[in-house]
């Protein structure tokens, strides 16, 4: 158990260098600097030490030492997260799993892959491709983000409606407890006996354990995929046609919506041939066997016309399909070109509430005098409003955060939630008290205690402690930024560019 006398930075480094190569134990400010934030760079903090172990035994030993001295541990993959979930703790160790990059095994027969946590999401599909298989969840950061981080955040992507989130595609994980004990959750089978701890670990943001190996399901690569693009004069019609597709019995592989700001920015950037005059644009991808795709594409085109689409275009080639997606996939950086900074939100709403939420968001946009562009995973109701701001204008980020908070509260008010796929981290910890009651938060804290009684795994993230949650409730919006400084003492606002 933990003792009261904490070792100094030097003493801890010495302990770690006893079993980890010296260059993989970092404590100088210059080399620590790149670790001060994750993909949400508005929140940063310098860690005490960064360690980059190379074996599971070394990770175990790091955890044992940190547990002995009650030193906070923040596990980190590629650092692409968008909720400051991997932001360091000033008195803690960043446990980077970046060196765990091996695809341990692809089993084409069982359609599974065993992976070290630092394997990049896209690298799984690349390794599986020679067997005609791929890994389903595809977060926008898939070039860089790691499977360990995907499990921690329960990452989604544009294909969730049909192929599920990370939690639906993970068979088992090998995890180290806070004490450094190795356990396996799940198995090579589909169901396991007892409490489903695997479900708890997915999306637990590094608060319950450190994942050292993951087994995922792979899917056969569809024979064919085509995308239909449709422009609409108004958002309501576009929203209704999404409902129309679902009601017709088709589950599209991807169903994405963009509003006029996003359309125009994406078109200028990607030259995909988007109708710039449209108020809303839908991209509907259908995949499956050649026959199925043909059948569904015809239905989707008809539906779009019947719901009043002003333009409908269907990809005829793979190159055209890639081009139509390019606009959507580059929407975030494209929006980055029309504004010095942007702040990406991540609420989920029941789809039927879309028009109301967008109208209300427009009202807020006028109130805060900040533009907002919308990119929407329309199939599953996950909304990504991008608030455009300039971090160089004093106070503008604080205003942006407040606007963002209002958007999340709006999502909860219409029956949705504060985060669909980016996680809570530090960023949305205040809004947890909007979505959950104190008793519910206490239950979450009790679950955390069951895994990590001392609370050294990624402290201050994901779930507010009761004391903190009472503070959040009692604080007026205008003071929120001050309260936040409790969490992030050396919080500096760097350039506010998030990507996702």
């Amino acid at each position, binding site marked *: 158990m933990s003792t009261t006398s904490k070792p100094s930075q030097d003493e801890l480094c010495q302990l770690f260098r006893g079993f980890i190569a010296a260059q993989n134990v970092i404590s100088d400010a210059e080399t620590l600097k790149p670790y001060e934030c994750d993909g949400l760079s508005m929140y940063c903090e310098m860690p005490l030490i960064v360690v980059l172990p190379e074996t599971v035994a070394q990770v175990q030993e790091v955890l044992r030492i940190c547990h002995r001295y009650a030193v906070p541990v923040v596990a980190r993959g590629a650092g692409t997260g968008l909720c400051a979930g991997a932001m360091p703790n000033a008195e803690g160790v960043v446990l980077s799993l970046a060196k765990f990059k091996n695809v341990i095994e692809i089993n084409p027969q069982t359609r599974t892959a065993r992976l070290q946590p630092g394997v990049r999401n896209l690298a799984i599909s690349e390794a599986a491709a020679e067997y005609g298989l791929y890994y389903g969840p595809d977060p926008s950061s898939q070039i860089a983000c790691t499977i360990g981080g995907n499990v921690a955040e329960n990452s989604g992507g544009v294909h969730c409606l049909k192929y599920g989130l990370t939690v639906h595609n993970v068979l088992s994980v090998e995890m180290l407890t806070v004490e450094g004990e190795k*356990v396996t959750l799940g198995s090579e089978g589909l169901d396991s006996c007892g409490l489903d701890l695997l479900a708890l670990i997915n*999306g637990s943001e590094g608060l319950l354990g450190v994942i050292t190996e993951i087994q995922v399901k792979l899917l*056969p690569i569809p024979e064919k995929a085509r995308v239909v693009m449709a422009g609409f004069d108004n958002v309501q019609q576009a929203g209704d046609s999404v409902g129309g597709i679902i009601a017709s019995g088709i*589950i599209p592989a991807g169903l994405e919506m963009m509003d006029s700001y996003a359309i125009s920015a994406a078109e200028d950037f990607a030259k995909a041939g988007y109708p710039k005059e449209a108020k809303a644009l839908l991209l509907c991808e259908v995949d499956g066997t050649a026959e199925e795709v043909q059948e569904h594409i015809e239905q989707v085109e008809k539906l779009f016309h019947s719901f009043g689409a002003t333009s409908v275009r269907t990809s005829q080639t793979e190159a055209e399909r890639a081009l139509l997606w390019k606009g959507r996939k580059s929407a975030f950086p494209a929006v980055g070109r029309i504004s010095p900074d942007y702040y990406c939100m991540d609420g989920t709403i029941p789809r039927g509430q879309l028009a109301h939420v967008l109208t209300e968001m427009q009202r807020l946009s006028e109130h805060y005098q900040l533009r907002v562009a919308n990119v929407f995973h329309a199939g599953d109701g996950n909304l990504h409003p991008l608030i455009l701001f300039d971090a160089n204008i004093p106070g503008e980020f604080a205003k942006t955060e407040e606007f963002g908070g209002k958007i999340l509260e709006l999502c909860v008010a219409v029956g949705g939630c504060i985060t669909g796929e980016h996680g809570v981290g530090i960023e949305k910890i205040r809004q947890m008290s909007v979505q959950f009651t104190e008793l519910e938060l206490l239950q979450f804290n009790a679950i955390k205690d069951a895994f990590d009684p001392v609370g050294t795994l990624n402290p201050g993230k994901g779930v507010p402690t009761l004391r903190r949650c009472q503070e959040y409730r009692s604080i007026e919006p205008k003071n929120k930024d001050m309260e936040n400084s409790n969490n992030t003492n050396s919080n500096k606002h760097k350039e506010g560019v998030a990507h996702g």
Partner: protein
Amino acid sequence: MADLSADIQQQVLAARDAKQTLNIIGGGSKSFMGREAVGDRLDVSGHRGIVNYQPVELVLTARAGTPLTEIEAALAENNQMLAFEPPRFSGEATLGGTLACNQSGPGRPWTGSVRDHVLGVRLINGLGEHLKFGGQVMKNVAGYDVSRLQAGAMGSLGVITEISLKVLPKPAASRTLAWDMGAQEAITFMNQLASRPKPLSAACWLQGRLYVRLSGALSAVEATLKEWKGTELTQDQANQFWQQLGQQELPFFDTDLPLWRFSINSAASIPALDEYSLIDWGGAQRWFRGEQDKLHMESLAAAAGGQVSLYSGGDRRSEVMHTTPAVLQAIQKRIKTSFDPDGIFNPGRLYHWM
């Protein structure tokens, strides 16, 4: 069609005050599962009714005591279904019990389990607090996934009062092919079929015959049917087979012998058992009837990459679930305590130590 949650909450509080334990019962259709139940009967079957169903949102919310038949009838009106194909157990199964026992049918490897389709729950914990987790949207990563944690917990964490689920359209067409072959050949073949991008939706081997179901767009199903050859079952034969399999009503299940359920690597062989087993889920679930030593069965399951449980029959006072390693036992006990500090709910139903 009543909301009895306040009433249930009172019963939980009363049990807590009186230091009594409770045995949560919905339709009572799965009382044969798990270890022997103890405690006062807490009947939640009256707490029923669909609370919200939006077909275009693909989301349904119902009280835990709602019979599956009622839910499936409402879905069918909109050409939708519970894609995890749960057993209805003569119409007595409720939604709450289905989640608590994590019951899914033949389509499970392709369309997911009840655990995969749960979006949110309301439950009353051991302190009598009525709490809400998850929600009614497909994507939600706020807080720990307490909703999915209920799947297979057998009511040990609280009284589930309401469940929100993802529902899916019924496939436009469904056809079934059969081949005569031995178990080992079938295991290999099922895994080969599953690696092809075709509309496979179930694969089961029993007594020398492999049954494969194709579901999806009519054109895709018919094209695959031609390509894969095999003997096509008539619609009636096919419906009857999958119905009886999913409902656990095949003659295979009609036994007084202990019934073992293996959840393992889909391609693994268990040479001693396979030929006598019912092999479902494309190889990932195997049923075996017979008096066997539990530890021996566990070693076979572990060698096949998974676990085994004594699903029905046999000694229900001993452990019926696969043995849990000590570290995981400790964590599970602490989670149990975090929901139910006085150990009111379904004591010992899952494990003697819980």
